[in-house]
């Protein structure tokens, strides 16, 4: 699916990553993924565990090297750059990790942790550095008293704020956020999302937001890529994807999201089985083995992306014939009513 955006900040073309696991086998973590991120755009990457989300994050920040394909960042081909050549670019290309407890050096104070990227990338004298640290701490709302503490003395939410302060310290153009809120409590999470929203509006930084939480992705991003088994099966503007999901996998994924509103009843497309092992890629559509509406040909031919609108593409053979809608799951596995008094057909067996 090649949707090259002119003037893209990041452009990824036919990216693949295979990890050898011995005995001549390899894990096909990322397969032929292409996408672009425009300056200031927030792009979401969603999919189940093992779909290759985090690997793409590591690839575009070039913490690992791709097996094939091309990565262009700010007009420069970074596909094969070595560590030392990458270093000056890292100021513009930052990463925030999922687990804030593990992302900071436990023997560095918070002040030293925030100062580190400034020291490495910006030519500032010590006084200017110190004032920049205070400014950043203030920006992410870490109390000044916390600056002389160590990571174990801070809460998860505060540590994630430190991670964000480090990421924005060098005024980057793109931040890759790998599940930045999934280990945090609900109200703490809302605070982090609000902070990201403010930073985005102030600095115009672009985000690659990796998450399995569709509700958060819908809130944060402008555009979404849905991954399955290392392939992009659908990409669209966020509003389009959530109002009109085309790929059967996206439909199933969205229907399984539990809305925190008891008035919206869950009516779910049940997927059977689990994501296949990524050691042997299926020759046809990656989703064919679990797709409720798969055709015989789906196991054989890899579907080409179908364009639903200029900003909405999905890889499913059934879209062309407009037969891609999943029929709503029957109420067999659900109670018709949520009253506990219902369905008392079986008396409790005695123990």
């Amino acid at each position: 699916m090649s949707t090259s955006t002119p003037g893209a900040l990041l452009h990824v073309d036919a990216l693949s990553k295979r990890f050898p696991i011995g005995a001549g086998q390899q894990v096909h973590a990322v397969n032929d993924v292409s996408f672009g991120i425009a300056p200031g755009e927030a792009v979401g990457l969603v999919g189940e565990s093992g779909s290759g989300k985090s690997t793409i994050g590591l690839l575009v920040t070039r913490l690992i090297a791709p097996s094939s394909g091309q990565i262009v960042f700010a007009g420069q081909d970074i596909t094969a750059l070595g560590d030392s050549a990458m270093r000056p670019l890292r100021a513009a290309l930052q990463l925030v990790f999922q687990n804030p407890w593990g992302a900071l050096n436990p023997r560095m104070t918070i002040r030293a942790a925030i100062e580190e990227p400034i020291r490495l990338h910006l030519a500032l004298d010590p006084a200017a550095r110190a004032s920049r640290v205070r400014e950043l701490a203030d920006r992410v709302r870490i109390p000044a008293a916390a600056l002389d503490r160590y990571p174990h003395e801070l809460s998860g939410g505060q540590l994630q704020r430190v991670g964000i302060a480090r990421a924005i310290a060098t005024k980057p153009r793109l931040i890759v956020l790998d599940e930045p809120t999934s280990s945090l409590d609900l109200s703490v999470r809302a605070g982090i999302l609000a902070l990201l929203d403010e930073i985005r509006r102030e600095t115009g930084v672009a985000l690659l937001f990796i998450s399995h939480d569709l509700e958060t992705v819908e809130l944060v991003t402008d555009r979404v890529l849905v991954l399955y088994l290392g392939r992009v099966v659908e990409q669209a503007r966020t509003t389009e994807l959530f109002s009109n999901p085309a790929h059967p996998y996206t439909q199933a994924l969205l229907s399984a999201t539990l809305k925190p509103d008891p008035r919206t009843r869950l009516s779910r497309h049940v997927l059977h089985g689990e994501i296949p092992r990524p050691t042997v890629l299926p020759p046809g559509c990656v989703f064919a083995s679990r797709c409720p509406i798969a055709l015989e040909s789906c196991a054989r031919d890899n579907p080409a992306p179908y364009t639903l609108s200029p900003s909405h593409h999905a890889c499913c053979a059934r879209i062309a014939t407009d037969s891609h809608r999943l029929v709503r799951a029957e109420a067999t596995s659900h109670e018709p009513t949520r009253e506990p008094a219902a369905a008392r057909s079986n008396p409790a067996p005695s123990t």
Partner: protein
Amino acid sequence: MPLLTIDNLHVHFIARDLGDRVRTARALNGVSLTVDEGEIVGLVGETGAGKSLTGLALLGLLRPPAHIVAGTITFEGAPLDAAAISAARGKRITLIPQSPLTSLDPLCRVGDQLVRVQREHANVSRRAAIERARALLAEVRIPDPDRCLRAWPHELSGGMAQRVLIAMALVHRPRLIIADEPTTGLDVTVQADVLDTLRNLVRVHRMSALLVTHDLGVVAQYCDRVAVLFAGTSVECAPTATLFEATAHPYTRTLIASTPHAIRRQGYAAASGTPPDLYALPLGCVYRERCDQATERCAAAPTTTALSPTHAVQCHFAGATP
């Protein structure tokens, strides 16, 4: 009469620090809730609010320095004291633990673990126990029960391991299942599958479940009633629809406003404060320091206001217009 009644439960961690001073962490400060037969009751709150601790207290698994300092637990009409808990634990009250992959014995095949649980509580032959294990795995909708019986825990995915643990909790057809964040860490499609399975089993066998979670989506879709915990206090208890539509406690309101779902509609709310220090909780209302409505009245502990027979709130301003 409810199957389970927890009334004003207080659990403190009492220990001496390095300077030999006694320090008390007030972990539970008045948890009250009921679970009726056939009902799924949600227990929500942030990390450290006492959700899992309430579950441990129900199972009699508190060990020093944790002490129940006040409150009563009544189960099936009788007080749940130490002897009653020992008799009920694993049989009439069971637990589905939080982290599926670390809760199974890694050195024991799945089938053997299911057999062991059965023979611990009843005198059954190994052959009968294996038969029953197979039936249980089928009941929790594991695709190939025979293969699963022979599998080692590390060969299972998170969703499968969680299903095995549900099967294990069902062995003795309990009256009450305590499910401690049963789907945290699972993918959305798997989460919905596992919760569907759990709900159907609870309904079919007329069991009850206490579902510990921090996910309001899980609450809204799977729970009949909800108790909201803050700093070890059940600040609001209500039927699920009432909790979301006639929210009465300021903390519950903050919690609901923090979901991405609500943020998309109403925008970002003001940032919330830090979690309370259990060693130095404020006097009076436990939520006082984070509450935007707090006044001098809140220096006195609020009593429980019953807004309806099923809707209880611990707030001085409950019922008054906010």
